[in-house]
C-alpha cells in the first residue's frame, strides 16, 4: 500500500505536482495516467525519496521510504531504462544492487532468467536495445521479490511481444497480492492492464476511479448513420423525437437509440441508408477529453482540422448528453 498525502513539488515557480492525495492498493494494478509533463515521473521520484517534496508526504506500508532498511525487499521500481551503467554487464549491474540489500547473488541469475536476459547476462548493458534495457530495469525491480512494484512507462520501447509479456507479468504479480503502480500515457494500454486508474493533469488529480467505472462512464456508445438523403433523415428523426448530430463526414451520430429503431424508421419512409452501425467512443478519447484542459505540450499539426482535442468538459460532466453540434466534429473515432 502506498499512501500519498497532499504531495506537492515545486520547481522554481512551476508546480509539477499539486497536492496529490491517493492510495495505491495491494492486489491490483493501478494505472497512473497523464499527458506529457503531468508530473508522473516527479511523483514517482518523490515516492522513492529521490526528490524532496515541497510539502506533503508519501508512506510505503505506513513508513517513510528512508525508514525502509532494505528497500528492494519492499518496493522495486523501474524509473527509466537508462538508469544502469552501460559499461557494466547486466549481471554486475544487478549484483551491486543485490549486495547493498543483502540479496543472495543467486537471485540475480533468477531475475535475469525471468526477464529473458540470461543469454546476455555477461554482456555490457550499453549494447542493449531499448527493450532489453527495459527488461533489465524490470529485473532490477524484481530483485528483492518486493510486495510493491512501481513502473514508469514500462512499455516504452517494447515490441508487441514485450508489451504482452509485461502486461501479463503485472497482472500475475497483482494476482499474487502485490501492489502494482504503473504509469503510462496510453489509455488503451491501461484499459487492458489496470484495475484501478489515477489520472493527473498538470500535477493535479483528475480522477481516482476503478477501471470498470471509468469504462462505464466514458465509453459512450452511439449509432452512426449515413444516407444520401441526410437532411430528410434528420428531419424525420427529429419528428420522431430523436436528436441526430452531424459528424462532419457526411454521417449522423445518434445517442441513446438502438440501431434497429433507426433502420426501421428509415425503411418506413423509404430512405436509402449507406451505413448504419453501432459505435463506441474509445477510452483514449475519454482520456483526452479529461486531460485536454491540462495538456501542456500541444503538438500543432500543419494542416488545420487535426487540432488537438477541444478543451473538454471537466471531469464529472460526461459527454453522453452532448448536444452541441460544434464540438461533435472529428473527435469520435471508431472503437471496439
Amino acid at each position: 500500500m502506498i499512501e500519498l498525502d497532499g504531495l506537492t513539488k515545486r520547481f522554481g515557480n512551476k508546480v509539477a505536482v499539486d497536492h496529490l492525495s491517493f492510495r495505491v492498493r495491494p492486489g491490483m494494478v493501478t494505472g497512473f495516467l497523464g499527458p506529457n509533463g503531468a508530473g508522473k515521473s516527479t511523483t514517482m521520484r518523490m515516492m522513492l525519496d529521490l526528490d524532496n517534496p515541497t510539502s506533503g508526504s508519501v508512506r510505503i506500508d505506513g513508513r517513510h521510504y528512508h525508514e525502509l532498511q532494505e528497500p528492494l525487499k519492499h518496493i522495486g521500481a523501474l524509473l527509466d531504462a537508462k538508469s544502469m551503467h552501460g559499461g557494466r554487464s547486466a549481471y554486475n549491474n544487478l549484483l551491486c544492487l543485490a549486495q547493498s540489500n543483502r540479496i543472495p547473488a543467486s537471485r540475480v541469475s533468477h531475475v535475469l532468467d525471468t526477464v529473458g536476459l540470461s543469454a546476455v547476462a555477461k554482456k555490457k548493458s550499453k549494447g542493449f536495445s531499448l527493450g532489453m534495457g527495459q527488461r533489465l530495469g524490470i529485473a532490477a525491480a524484481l530483485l528483492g521479490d518486493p510486495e510493491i512494484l512501481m513502473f514508469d512507462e514500462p512499455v516504452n520501447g517494447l515490441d508487441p511481444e514485450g508489451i504482452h509479456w509485461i502486461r501479463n507479468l503485472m497482472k500475475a504479480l497483482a494476482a499474487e497480492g502485490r501492489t502494482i503502480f504503473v504509469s503510462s500515457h496510453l489509455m488503451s494500454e491501461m484499459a487492458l492492464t489496470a484495475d484501478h486508474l489515477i489520472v493527473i493533469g498538470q500535477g493535479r488529480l483528475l480522477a481516482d476511479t476503478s477501471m470498470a467505472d471509468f469504462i462505464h462512464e466514458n465509453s459512450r456508445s452511439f449509432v452512426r448513420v449515413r444516407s444520401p438523403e441526410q437532411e430528410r433523415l434528420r428531419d424525420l428523426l427529429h419528428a420522431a423525437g430523436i436528436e441526430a448530430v452531424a459528424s462532419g463526414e457526411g454521417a449522423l451520430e445518434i445517442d441513446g437509440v438502438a440501431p434497429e429503431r433507426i433502420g426501421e424508421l428509415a425503411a418506413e419512409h423509404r430512405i436509402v441508408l449507406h451505413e448504419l452501425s453501432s459505435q463506441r467512443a474509445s477510452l483514449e478519447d475519454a482520456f483526452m477529453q479529461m486531460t485536454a484542459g491540462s495538456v501542456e505540450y500541444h503538438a500543432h499539426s500543419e494542416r488545420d482540422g487535426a487540432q488537438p482535442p477541444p478543451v473538454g468538459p471537466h471531469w464529472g460532466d460526461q459527454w453522453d448528453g452532448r448536444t452541441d453540434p460544434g464540438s461533435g466534429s472529428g473527435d469520435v473515432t471508431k472503437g471496439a
Partner: protein
Amino acid sequence: MTTPAAPPPPPYPDRSPGRDGEQAPSAPVRTPGLGDAVASEWTKIRSVRSTVWTLGVMVLLLLGVGLLTAVAIRAADADLQDEPVLSLGFFGVLLGSICVITLGVLTIASEYGTGLIRTTLAVCPSRSRVLIAKSIVFFLLSFTVTTVTAGVVGVLQTAILDGGTPTAGEWLGATVGVGLYVALLGLLALALGAVVRHSAGAITIMIGVVLLPLVLAMFMFTDTLDSVRQVLFEYSIPSQLASLYDTPITLSGPSGWDSVLILTCVTAVAMGAALASQDRRDV
C-alpha cells in the same frame, strides 16, 4: 552481440524460494549497513573499464617515467648531486595523480551522468552511507595501487642507479606517504564530484587545483607579489608532493608528513561539505 529479439519470455509463475512462507521472505537478522554498501561499491568499481584504464595508465606512468629517468641518468653517467634516488619517481607520480583524480571524480559523477544514481539511492536511501562506502572503496584501492607501484619503481630505481641506499624514512615517504597523498587527492576529487555532479567539470576543476597555483606563481614577476608567490609555490600540490621525497621545490614550506596532514584536513572539509549537501538535493 546476441539478437535484440530476446529469447521467448518465460512465463512468470516460478518465483524464488522464500515466497511461499507467507511471512517476510528472509526476516532480517541484522540491518544492512556500511559493509553491504562497501561490497556493492566494490562490485561497481571493479566492473567498469574506467577503473582499469585510469589505474592502468597511472601504473604505466609511474613505471615508465620513473624508470626512463633512472635509465637516462645512468646512460649519461650524470651525477645525482645529493638528490635522493627515490625522488626520481616524482614526475611519474605527479602525472599519475591526474589519473587517480579522474577515477575519483568518475566514481561518483558518472552515476549522475548515467542516471544510475537514482537506482543506487532508491536501493540505499541513506545518501551518506553511499558516499562513505564509495570513498572507502576508492581510497583503499587507489592507496594500495599507488603505494605498491611507487614501491616497485623505487626498488627498480635504486637497482638501476647504485647510489646511496635510501633510509627507512625516505622509503616510507616515497611509498606510503606518496600513496596516501595521491589517494587523498583522489578523495578530494570524489568529494568535488559529489558536489558538482558533472564528470568533465569536476575533473577540470581538480586539474586546475593541482596545477594552477604553481603556474600562477611562475608568472608572478613583480616584486610586490613576492610573498603571494612564495605561498603559492610552497603550498601548491606539486611542491607538497615533492616534499615527500625530501626535495621540496622550495626549501621552505611544509615538510613531507605535514603535507599529508594538510591535505587530510582539506579533504575532510570537502567531504563534510559533500555529505552535508547530499540530503537536501534532488537527484
